[in-house]
């Protein structure tokens, strides 16, 4: 067993009276696809924000390839090889699609002779080639998601944090995105940590699930086990949200 690429222990965060993340721990092996599952408000995005340096934890440790990420600014963390996407897509307004990807290509991890060619190749990978010179703010929702991924990929990450990549997409787009994620994983040996709501796609993508509710872990294991876990079911059905496993 090789050393974990990401080692999170005791991660804790309060916002005033709200205990958003409670003693979260996670260990991700290289080239794994791990999913974080949980109903709305469970603390998933907060965990991502903590991991990527946008918020500082109250306590706990995050080790990325052995280096502690605590206290590092987000851009430094990206420079170490951890990239994230945002749940609500944030295109850089005023720039074209190509420029958006270029912005991600300027970090220390990128060694390429021709940045424009590399950026175009990335756009090709996510299927946005014909939109390269469009203003980013004119993209459709699905295309914005692809742009998010392309920009994150541009930073040459080893670990990719995807925050609800399927949210708001139609069935066909979900399938296409799913295929893309799988191909990225296999072709580039990318480790992926994924937050999602839509269980079906989730189940087929990830090898391991960490289920959380109210900021703490309630179950962990392969998808098939999680679906039948009573605590997970309660977390969902307790909120009147059935666990959609089969179409």
């Amino acid at each position, binding site marked *: 067993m090789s050393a974990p690429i990401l080692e999170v222990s005791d991660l804790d965060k309060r916002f005033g009276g709200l205990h958003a993340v409670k003693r979260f721990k996670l260990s991700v092996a290289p080239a794994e696809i791990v999913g974080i599952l949980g109903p709305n408000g469970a603390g998933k995005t907060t965990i991502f924000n903590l991991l*990527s340096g*946008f918020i500082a934890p109250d306590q706990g440790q995050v080790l990325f390839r052995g280096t502690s990420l605590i206290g590092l*600014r*987000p*851009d*430094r963390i*990206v*420079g170490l090889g951890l*990239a*994230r*996407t*945002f749940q609500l897509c*944030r*295109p*850089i*307004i*005023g*720039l074209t699609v190509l*420029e958006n990807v*270029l*912005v*991600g290509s*300027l*970090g*220390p*991890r990128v060694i390429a002779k*021709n*940045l*424009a*060619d590399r*950026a*175009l190749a990335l756009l090709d990978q996510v299927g946005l080639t014909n939109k*390269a*010179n469009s203003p*980013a703010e004119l993209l459709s929702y699905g295309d914005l998601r692809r742009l998010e991924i392309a*920009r*994150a990929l*541009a*930073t040459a990450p080893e670990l990719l944090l995807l925050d609800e990549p399927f949210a708001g997409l139609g069935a066909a787009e979900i399938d296409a995105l799913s295929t893309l994620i799988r191909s990225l994983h296999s072709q580039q040996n990318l480790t992926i940590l994924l937050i999602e709501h839509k269980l079906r796609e989730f189940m087929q993508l990830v090898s391991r699930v960490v289920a959380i509710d109210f900021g703490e872990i309630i179950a962990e294991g392969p998808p098939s086990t999680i679906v039948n876990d009573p605590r997970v079911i309660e977390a969902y059905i307790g909120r009147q949200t059935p666990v959609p496993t089969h179409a």
Partner: protein
Amino acid sequence: MDARAFPGLDRLSTASGLLALGALGALPIFFPGKYLTGVLTVAAIYGLWAVSWDFMSGLTGRENFGHSLFIGVGAYAAGFMNVKLGFGPWWSLPSAMLVAMAFGLVLGIPTLRLKGPYFALAMLSAAVIMQRLMLIFWEETGGEEGIQDITPLIKDHLHYYWFVLALLGASTVSLAALARSRWGLILRAIRGDEATCLAAGLPITRYKIVSLMISAAFAGLGGALYAHYQLQVSPQLFAVVTSITIITMVYVGGIGTIYGAAGGALLLTIMTEGLRQVGEWRLMAYSVMLILIIFFLPSGIIAPSWQRLRKSLGGTDRGLVGGGPAG
């Protein structure tokens, strides 16, 4: 499809820029006289101030309402070096730039983390206070009167004008080139969405501060040139009116384009000289003009016109960088 990542300057632009410079330089030869040369010199210095403002504020959308501070400290640095410390006048230029850059660093660190309007106000406050400080320490700075009897850099008015014009040209070219390089892309990205820039791995604070320092350096340079033209410096240099005038010039020229700022400065200075008969209404004219431009022509006049001219001449549409006040 244009696959070049960073456009850079192209030949049509550079050629026309040189042409414009040449024309401006030749003007006093056809219309000799100290008056015209003086007006053009001041116009060129305003041009320098305008392009320095545009580089930082035009690209990042962080509008600096206290640009006069950098102008003032540059000018006073020149005055100090020359009169109080007795250095030869040529030492003023690098000193002014260094002093202005230092102020850019010191002020930038606390203020650039603020959102747009608060950054603007903080810089405005800083400029107002700086003006006050010049008066408070009147023993060292000469108070209301300022520093007098600065020695000129180049005695001949025409030669000095050409020198200033050359500096304007060099500054415009280098700042425009920077704006069309990866640096400019980063600044525009910062304007678009800072969080995304962070998530893309860009150390935005560093870029913001360095850009402010660059902006300050060129403004300070202009300040020193002004000092050696007027042969005196006074606290009036820190006035808010100066900052507003410069902002108006940039808007008229087309915010974010760099060359537009230079054009706007030249155009407006010359135009308002013609209004000298109207006398004291001149200062008000700039404020009124700014309001009108923001309401009716937020992309400016000069840059859009130039873009249209380019297209008719067969050049590619480079598009406008920036345009209108940032939200």
